[in-house]
C-alpha cells in the first residue's frame, strides 16, 4: 500500500515545501531590513503588472522550461544532469553559427536551423559525460559539473579569439542579421489585436518551449522509449532483465536532455540578445534543477515551475532596479526552493506520511 495518496505526493508536498521556502525568504528580507510585503508587491507588479513585465517573465520562463525539461528527462532515467549550463552555452554557439554564417531567407527557417544545431551542440556536450557514465561508470554529476567549466572555457576562447568581430572590444559575436531575428510576442499578438509590450524579449521560442513540454510528456508517458527510460530509472536490474540496454538508455536520455538544454539558446541568444555574449546562460542551467524538482519532473509541473521562476527572476530584477534589495535575493530564494523541494523533501514527507498512516489506521 502506498504510504499516502498520490495527490499528497504531487501537490501537497511541493506546496508545503514552497510555503516553507517562501516563509524563510520573507525572514531573509526582514533580516536585511526590508519589508517583505512591499517587496512581494513590487515583484508582482513588476513581473505581472504589465505586458512588459509579463514579457520578461515569460522570456525567463522559456529559458527555464528548456533547462527544467532537460533535468526532468534525465531524472526519469535516474540521471542527475547538472550540466544544463554548459549544454546551453554550447547550444548558444550552435545558434550563433547558424545565424551568422547561413543566409536565411526567413526567420522561421532560421529558427528551425538554429534549433537543430543548438540541440545538436547541447546533445554533443552531454554525450561525453553520458558515454563515460554508461561505459566507464564515471559519476555523471561530477563529469557534467566539469563539463560546465570546460564549456565556459571553450566559449571564452571562441568569443575572444575566433568569433569576435574585428575591431570590437567585447568578447561577443556580431549581431545576427535581420532575417534571423525572431518575432517577439508583440509581433505575434499584434495581428490578433492584442497589444503587447514591444520592449520585452518574450518571443516565439516560448511556443517552441511549450511544444517541447508536450513532446516530452508524450515521450515519457506514451512512447516505448519513455517506458524504457522510466523502467531503467526505477530499476537498473529490472531494465537488464527486460532487455533494456543501460548504455543505450543512458546515452539517449542524456542526448535528449542535452538537446533540450541546448535549445534554450534559441530564446536567450537568438530571441533576446541577437548575438552571443559571454555568460549568456546566466545560470539558467542550474535553475533547471530547481524547476524540475518543483515540477516533480512532470512536464506540466515543469511548465508551472518555470513560470514561477520566471516571475521570481523578473520580480527580482525589478527589486534590484527600484529598491536597495540586491538581485541576489532571487538566488537565495532559488536556493531555498531547491533545498526544501529537493534535499529536505523528507522533512515534509515523513510527518505527512505518519499523518496519513494514522488517519488510515483510525479509519480501519
Amino acid at each position, binding site marked *: 500500500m502506498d504510504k499516502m495518496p498520490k495527490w499528497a505526493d504531487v501537490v501537497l508536498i511541493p506546496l508545503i515545501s514552497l510555503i516553507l521556502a517562501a516563509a524563510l525568504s520573507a525572514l531573509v528580507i526582514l533580516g536585511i531590513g526590508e519589508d517583505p510585503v512591499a517587496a512581494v508587491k513590487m515583484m508582482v507588479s513588476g513581473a505581472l503588472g504589465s505586458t512588459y513585465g509579463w514579457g520578461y517573465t515569460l522570456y525567463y520562463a522559456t529559458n527555464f522550461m528548456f533547462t527544467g525539461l532537460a533535468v526532468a528527462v534525465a531524472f526519469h532515467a535516474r540521471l542527475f544532469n547538472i550540466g544544463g549550463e554548459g549544454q546551453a552555452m554550447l547550444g548558444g554557439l550552435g545558434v550563433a553559427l547558424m545565424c551568422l554564417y547561413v543566409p536565411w531567407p526567413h526567420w522561421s527557417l532560421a529558427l528551425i536551423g538554429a534549433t537543430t544545431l543548438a540541440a545538436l551542440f547541447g546533445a554533443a556536450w552531454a554525450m561525453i559525460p553520458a558515454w563515460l557514465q554508461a561505459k566507464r561508470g564515471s559519476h555523471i554529476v561530477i563529469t557534467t559539473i566539469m563539463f560546465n567549466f570546460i564549456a565556459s572555457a571553450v566559449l571564452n576562447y571562441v568569443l575572444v579569439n575566433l568569433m569576435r568581430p574585428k575591431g570590437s572590444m567585447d568578447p561577443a559575436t556580431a549581431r545576427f542579421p535581420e532575417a534571423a531575428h525572431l518575432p517577439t510576442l508583440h509581433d505575434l499578438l499584434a495581428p490578433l489585436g492584442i497589444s503587447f509590450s514591444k520592449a520585452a524579449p518574450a518571443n516565439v521560442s516560448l511556443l517552441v518551449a511549450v511544444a517541447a513540454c508536450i513532446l516530452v510528456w508524450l515521450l515519457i508517458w506514451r512512447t516505448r522509449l519513455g517506458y524504457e527510460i522510466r*523502467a531503467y530509472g526505477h530499476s537498473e536490474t529490472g531494465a537488464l532483465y527486460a532487455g533494456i540496454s543501460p548504455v543505450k538508455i543512458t546515452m539517449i536520455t542524456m542526448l535528449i536532455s542535452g538537446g533540450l538544454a541546448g535549445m534554450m539558446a534559441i530564446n536567450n541568444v537568438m530571441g533576446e540578445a541577437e548575438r552571443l555574449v559571454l555568460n549568456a546562460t546566466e545560470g539558467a542551467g542550474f535553475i533547471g534543477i530547481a524547476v524540475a524538482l518543483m515540477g516533480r519532473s512532470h512536464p506540466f509541473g515543469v511548465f508551472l515551475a518555470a513560470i514561477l521562476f520566471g516571475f521570481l527572476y523578473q520580480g527580482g530584477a525589478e527589486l534590484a532596479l527600484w529598491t536597495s534589495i540586491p538581485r541576489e535575493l532571487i538566488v537565495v530564494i532559488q536556493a531555498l526552493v531547491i533545498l526544501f523541494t529537493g534535499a529536505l523533501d523528507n522533512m515534509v514527507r515523513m510527518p505527512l506520511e505518519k499523518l496519513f498512516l494514522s488517519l488510515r489506521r483510525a479509519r480501519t
Partner: protein
Amino acid sequence: MSDTSPAIELRGISKAFGPVQANKDISIRVMPGTIHGIIGENGAGKSTLMSILYGFYKADAGEVFINGRKTEIPDSQAAISAGIGMVFQHFKLVETFTVLENVILGAEEGRLLRPSLARARKVLAELAVEYELNVDPDARIDQIGVGMQQRVEILKALYRQADILILDEPTGVLTPPEADHLFRILDNLRAEGKTIILITHKLREIMDITDTVSVMRRGEMTATVKTAETTPEELAELMVGRKVLLRVDKAPATPGKMVLEVKNLRVRDDQRVERVKGVDLNLRAGEILGIAGVAGNGQSELLEVLGGMRPATGTVTLNGTTLKLEGRGSDGQSRRAAGIAHVPEDRQREGLIMEFHAWENVAFGYHHDPAFCRGPLMVNAALVRDTEAKMEKFDVRPPDPALAAKNFSGGNQQKIVVAREIERNPDLLLVGQPTRGVDIGAIEFIHKQIVALRDQGAAVLLVSVELDEILALSDRIAVMFDGRLMGERLPDQTDERELGLLMAGVSGAAA
C-alpha cells in the same frame, strides 16, 4: 532450570514498517545454555524480531528482559553491552577492511588503533583454537569466501564477549560441510553455557540442533515447542497455517525434440570471478529440468545468461540456432524474440518495476510487441485489457490493473510475473525460485501452471534452492556445485540425502 530466569524474554513486541506490520505482539522466552530455533516463511518477521532484540530496529511496543532484568535496547551498543551478538542474514562487514579491522570496529580500546589491533590479533588466535574458527586476520573481506565471512561475523560477536548469539539464516549460503562445521561450533558454544538463537527455514536443521523452537507466521508467533516433542510435519503446518502437501499431480513427461543445448558455458561475474565453470546440459520439449544447489553455486548466473542478463562464453543453441552470448543480440529482447520466457529469481528487483502500474508491468520485456504498440507509441488501452484478462485467469488479487506493483502482496506480484511469462507460450521457460515467499495456495497454483506449460510442449528449466520444489516438479534433476553440474538424477530414483551430498560437492556413484 525452573528457578533460573530466561536469558532472553521478549514481551509484546510489535513493529510496523509503514503499512506493513512485520511483528505483532510477540512474546518469547529463551533459557540460558540452550539453542532456540525460530522458523517461518519468508517475510514472516523473523529477522525483524531479532534485529529489534539487537537494537538495529526500534520496536513500536514491547519489552525486553535479559537474564530476568528489564533492559532498554535503543541501539546495538546497548545490545552488545547486554552481551548480545548477532550474525545478520546479510553480513555487516566492511569489505575493504581486513578481518582484524572488522573485528575491532566499534570495540577498539583507546583512541589509537595499533594497541587494539595487537590485542585483537592475540584474542583471535585464542578463539581460533577454542572454537575451530580459523581465519587469516590480515585478509581483506572482499577476498575471502562467504563461509569465512560468516566466521568473521561470529568472531566479532565472540570478541565482544557475547553470551547470547543470534544467527539469522546462517546456512543459506553454506555448503553442507560448512554447515556441519558451523553446527559443531554452535554445539561448543552451547557447552560453554552460551545461549543461541538460530533462525532458519530448514526444518532438518531445527530438528538436529535446537532445544526449543518457535514458529512465526505473518508477523505473529504461532507456537513455541520443545524440539524433542514435535515433528517436521507439525512444524511445517504451524509455519504455513495449514496442512502441507508438497506434491504436484503430473503425468509422466513425454520429451519431444531437443530445445536447448548448452556446451561448455562459462560465466564471470562483475568482479571477474568465474561463477559457471563449463556447464553442459540439454533440454527437450515437454520436460522440466530442475537444477538444485546451495545458493551461490552458479545457478543464478546460468539462468541470467540464458535470459540475456549477462555475457558468457561457450555455445548455447535453441531449437537448432546458436544464441549470441555477448554483445549485440545477446540481451533479453533477443532472447524473448527467440522464444525464451523468464521468471526471474527476484521479482521485485528484476521481474517487476515496483512503481509501475500492473498493466505497465504486464508489458515489461514485451513492450515492443506489436499488439501493444502503434509506431513509437504504446497503446495503453490494449495493455489494460490484456492485464484484466491475465489477472482474472491467474486470480490476481486485487484485480486492479492500475494498482502499482509494489502495492500487491508478494504472492500476487509473483502471479503477475508468471502470468506474463507463461502466457507468451514460450518454447523455453526459465524459472528461478518461482515460489520464494509465496503462500501455499499460490505455490500450488504456480506449480500447476508450470506443469501445464510443459504439457503443452514447452521445455522448462527450473532453478530452486528448495529441494522439495525440485523433487516435486522436475522430470530430471541436475545438481550444481561450484559452477559445475554434479550429475543428473531422476526424481523417483533419488532422495534428499543423495541430492544433499551432491550439493556439497560429494559426487557419489555416477557423474
